[in-house]
């Protein structure tokens, strides 16, 4: 009882329901024997009665059950030996959102439950357990006062999608009903226009109109119910939206008509006793149809993300205890050996341990040509194995895989705001109340200055103003284009981190490229073999490569790699000696081979005088040259250099075509830097820049008034990437530095820069079209609806047309954004 008293005191002080933690007042429900404890609802009281101890303990201990770790809820650690599994339960009996908290608490307090999530709308509970029978879970839920049963099979992954479709269908049904009612209503609303209608003022027509009043009531109450509930919910939050405008518009038309019909004495002039049930029915039908179409169109804006999610493999074939077993993707652990057959999807990220194949990585990197994979090569989950069978060791699984990271990044980016939208948001906050004020002013103006029948005109124009204004078109303009644009980027292997980056990218006028790893491959390769004596080119290379097989120096590796690429297999040297910083000496097939610079040759008694001129030429080209001496005589020269990537020239050409200035930044000497710049056609070179000064160089460019994009590998260039207006990090294979930079180019190619800028331009153009369209529509539409044209041309807009315009303006905006889905990089377009 002591515990209860404590609780009572706490409960009284905090004034919170011990079950759902909601604040409760003096009118809270109580329970005998637990004075001072209040409940928000009968459910909470019942749940408390079922397990008072638990709630008391939870409260007295001060522990928040939601924050409990598996260990303190009694669940064992998940991991080896303990297979966590997810159980899906269907829960019924929930009446409010606090029930969610109650059930989650009840589940989480059950020993063995690692996590529980309850979805109020879907009436489902997702429970992660470690060896807990389903009956225990259902019992826990029932003890809390609800009913539960297990759902067989997988949880519905596309619950959101299904909800969208349900809503879409419901709106279509609502539209169908409203449209059906609208047809006779329109017919009988215009006795002057259509034949066979009783005369105006006759009892017969009054009766027909009375029937119309009754018929349009369910149109308001059912077809248009979301306008009223939406308007009311917004009103409670002291805000107003499209629903508010439509709800006032259609109900004003109905109310005026009904008053005119039922109480003709209130409206003395006979001309005023007109009805507008057609406005109610037609506007409702059109706006509901517009909402339905908008939902459909909006679903398409996130298609790229859905496609990415759909790429994930469902199962993986593992080697466990020497046997091949197929397991769900969730069960793959780092270190597992995975088997992939031709045509199969690679389930997770990893490194090839045996076998070889070509892999189609286009879905992740945007690179259309399959990539060769052999032992040691990294593979990316969700890519497709084309030709051979191979095994790989899983290195990243679950939410760490590259695809998962990409999905997260795209989702975050789609949720971010572009600077342009912040301005729109400010306007949006004032928009709807402003329209309401304009409607009131319109009514006043027509009533005071308008021609007779003034009241009729005042009502009609005010309703038209309310109905034509479309805040949705304005609100949807930027985010929908952004969703599509960022999704398109992901499809092309360009990950744009935020709306900010996407918007800034279209203003870039200067691209700064880091040389090593960006313009060039970042590793030396063999470029020249010069014959200086009697040996052939092949012999020289064979001897140089054989001498270098023992070397671990990157230059040596480049020579060995170059020889292999030319079909020369080096042999093991009999004797090997390296003199760091100078060269190597080795015995290959009985010959004494020396490799090194001029000084080293002199030391080893090799006369190398004639080579000097060639050495200078090679050095001018930014290459590192090594003399090769065989048996004391100069045989030739081999040169290695960090070569440019194959598509660098083309990509830089495209940047120039886009009017961009291209600058190269490097720590290398001026000579090497300029040699590379010449090869690829770069305008400006900043050489011998220390890594810590790269950011300063960017600052200097910005001081010249340039909008700078810095492109680097994302690891060494982080400060420069951060300083630039847009930092673009180059990914290489699986090592994608996603955290640095505003844009990540998954495939480490310069063409991605061009594509990113093109995409930004296309997206911002689309946003502008949308915004200009939406602003123009509202700024022209509202005055016309208010009757501004009437004094000059005698033209008045029909509220029916206003309703149609409003319904389709937002659909138009979303459809325009969807046009971006057809966007393709210029490179792809040319190739096609």
């Amino acid at each position, binding site marked *: 009882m002591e515990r209860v008293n404590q609780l009572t005191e706490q409960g009284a002080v905090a004034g919170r329901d011990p079950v759902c933690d909601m604040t409760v007042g003096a009118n809270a429900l109580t329970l005998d024997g637990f004075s001072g404890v209040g409940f928000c609802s009968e459910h909470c009281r019942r749940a408390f009665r079922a397990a008072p101890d638990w709630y008391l303990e939870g409260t007295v201990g001060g522990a928040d059950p939601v924050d409990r770790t598996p260990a303190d809820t009694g669940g064992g650690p998940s991991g080896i030996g303990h297979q966590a599994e997810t159980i899906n339960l269907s829960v019924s009996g929930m009446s409010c959102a606090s029930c969610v908290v109650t059930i989650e608490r009840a589940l989480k307090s059950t020993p063995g439950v690692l996590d529980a999530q309850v979805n109020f*709308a879907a009436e489902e509970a997702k429970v992660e357990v470690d060896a807990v029978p389903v009956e225990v879970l259902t019992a826990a839920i029932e003890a809390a006062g609800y009913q539960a049963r297990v759902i067989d099979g997988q949880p519905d992954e596309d619950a959101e999608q299904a909800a969208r479709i349900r809503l879409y269908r419901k709106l279509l049904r609502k539209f169908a009903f409203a449209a059906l009612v609208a047809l006779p209503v329109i017919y009988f609303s215009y006795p002057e226009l259509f034949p066979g209608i009783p005369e105006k003022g006759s009892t017969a027509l009054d009766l027909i109109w009375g029937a119309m009043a009754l018929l349009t009531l369910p149109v308001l109450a059912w077809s248009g119910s979301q306008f009223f509930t939406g308007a009311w919910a917004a009103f409670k939050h002291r805000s107003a939206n499209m629903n508010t405008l439509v709800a006032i518009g259609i109900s004003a038309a109905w109310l005026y008509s009904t008053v005119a019909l039922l109480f003709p004495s209130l409206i003395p002039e006979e001309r005023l006793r007109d009805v507008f049930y057609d406005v109610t029915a037609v506007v409702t039908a059109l706006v509901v149809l517009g909402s339905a179409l908008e939902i459909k169109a*909006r679903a398409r804006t996130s298609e790229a993300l859905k496609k990415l999610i759909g790429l994930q493999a469902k199962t993986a074939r593992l080697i466990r205890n020497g046997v091949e077993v197929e397991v769900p993707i969730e069960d793959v652990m780092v270190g597992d050996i995975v088997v992939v057959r031709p045509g199969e999807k690679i389930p997770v990220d990893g490194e090839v341990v045996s076998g070889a194949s070509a892999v189609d990585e286009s879905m992740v990197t945007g690179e259309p040509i399959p990539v060769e994979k052999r032992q040691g090569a990294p593979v990316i989950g969700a890519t497709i194995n084309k030709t051979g069978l191979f095994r790989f060791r899983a290195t990243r699984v679950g939410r760490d895989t590259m695809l998962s990271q990409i999905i997260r990044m795209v989702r975050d980016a789609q*949720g971010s705001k572009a600077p342009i939208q912040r301005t729109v*948001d400010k306007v949006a906050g004032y928009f709807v109340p402003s329209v309401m004020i304009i409607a*009131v*002013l319109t009514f006043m103006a027509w009533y*005071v200055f308008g021609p007779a029948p003034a009241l009729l005109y005042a009502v009609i124009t005010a309703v038209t103003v309310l109905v034509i204004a479309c805040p949705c078109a304005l609100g949807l303009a930027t985010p929908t284009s952004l969703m599509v644009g960022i999704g398109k980027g992901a499809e092309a292997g360009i990950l744009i981190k935020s709306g900010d980056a996407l918007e800034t990218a279209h203003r870039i006028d200067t691209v700064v490229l880091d040389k090593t790893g960006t313009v060039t491959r970042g590793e030396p390769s063999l470029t020249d073999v010069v014959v200086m004596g009697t040996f052939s080119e092949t012999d020289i290379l064979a001897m140089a490569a054989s001498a270098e097989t023992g070397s671990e120096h990157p230059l040596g590796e480049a020579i060995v790699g170059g020889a292999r690429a030319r079909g020369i297999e080096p042999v093991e040297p009999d004797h090997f000696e390296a003199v760091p910083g100078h060269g190597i000496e080795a015995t290959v097939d009985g010959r004494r081979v020396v490799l090194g610079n001029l000084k080293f040759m002199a030391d080893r008694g090799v006369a190398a005088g004639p080579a000097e001129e060639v050495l200078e030429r090679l050095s001018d080209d930014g290459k590192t040259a090594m003399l090769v001496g065989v048996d004391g005589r100069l045989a030739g020269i081999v040169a290695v250099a960090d070569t440019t990537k194959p598509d660098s020239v083309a990509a830089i050409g495209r940047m120039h075509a886009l009017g961009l200035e291209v600058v190269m930044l490097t720590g290398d000497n001026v000579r090497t830097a300029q040699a590379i710049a010449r090869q690829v056609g770069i305008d400006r070179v900043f050489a011998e820049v220390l890594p810590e000064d790269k950011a300063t160089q960017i600052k200097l460019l910005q001081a010249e008034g340039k909008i700078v994009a810095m492109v680097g590998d994302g690891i060494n260039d982080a400060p420069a990437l951060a300083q630039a207006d847009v930092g673009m990090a180059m990914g290489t294979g699986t090592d994608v530095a996603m955290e640095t930079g505003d844009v990540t180019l998954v495939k480490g190619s310069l063409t991605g820069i061009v594509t990113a800028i093109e995409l930004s331009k296309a997206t911002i153009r689309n946003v502008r079209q949308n915004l200009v369209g939406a602003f123009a529509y509202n700024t022209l539409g509202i005055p016309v609806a208010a009757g501004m044209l009437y004094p000059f041309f005698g033209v008045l807009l029909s509220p029916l047309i206003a309703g149609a315009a409003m319904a389709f303006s937002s659909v138009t905006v979303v459809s325009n954004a969807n046009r971006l889905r057809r966007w393709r990089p210029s490179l792809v377009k040319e190739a096609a």
Partner: protein
Amino acid sequence: MDVVIVVLAGVALIGLIVWYFWLWKPGGVSAGITSGGIQEAFIVVKGGYSPDTIRVEAGRPVRLVFNRQEADPCSEKVVLDAFGVSADLPEGDNVPVEFIPGQPGEYEFACQMGMLRGKVVVS
């Protein structure tokens, strides 16, 4: 006479709209503190955010748990622009959004279209 009444009523209505939607300042609620020291608030999303003003302390982690209780797609995303976070809100799910507020001030959060709005008041 009726003209005067209509004009007066109209002006009064405009005043009411201005006051109700723009001038009124919400009081807001302070976030509760969990045992883990996190400032936590539960926000229902239905035509708006309830509560729509959350008071928190600077420098302490904040967890806003959103629960969307409507099918209207307008509110399907919540964006806390100032803190660089956003979340999809499947109908009925409790979706936690976490961040650490730095400087005191008022920071807006909104749906993707900027129609539904709330704010975090950091002190």
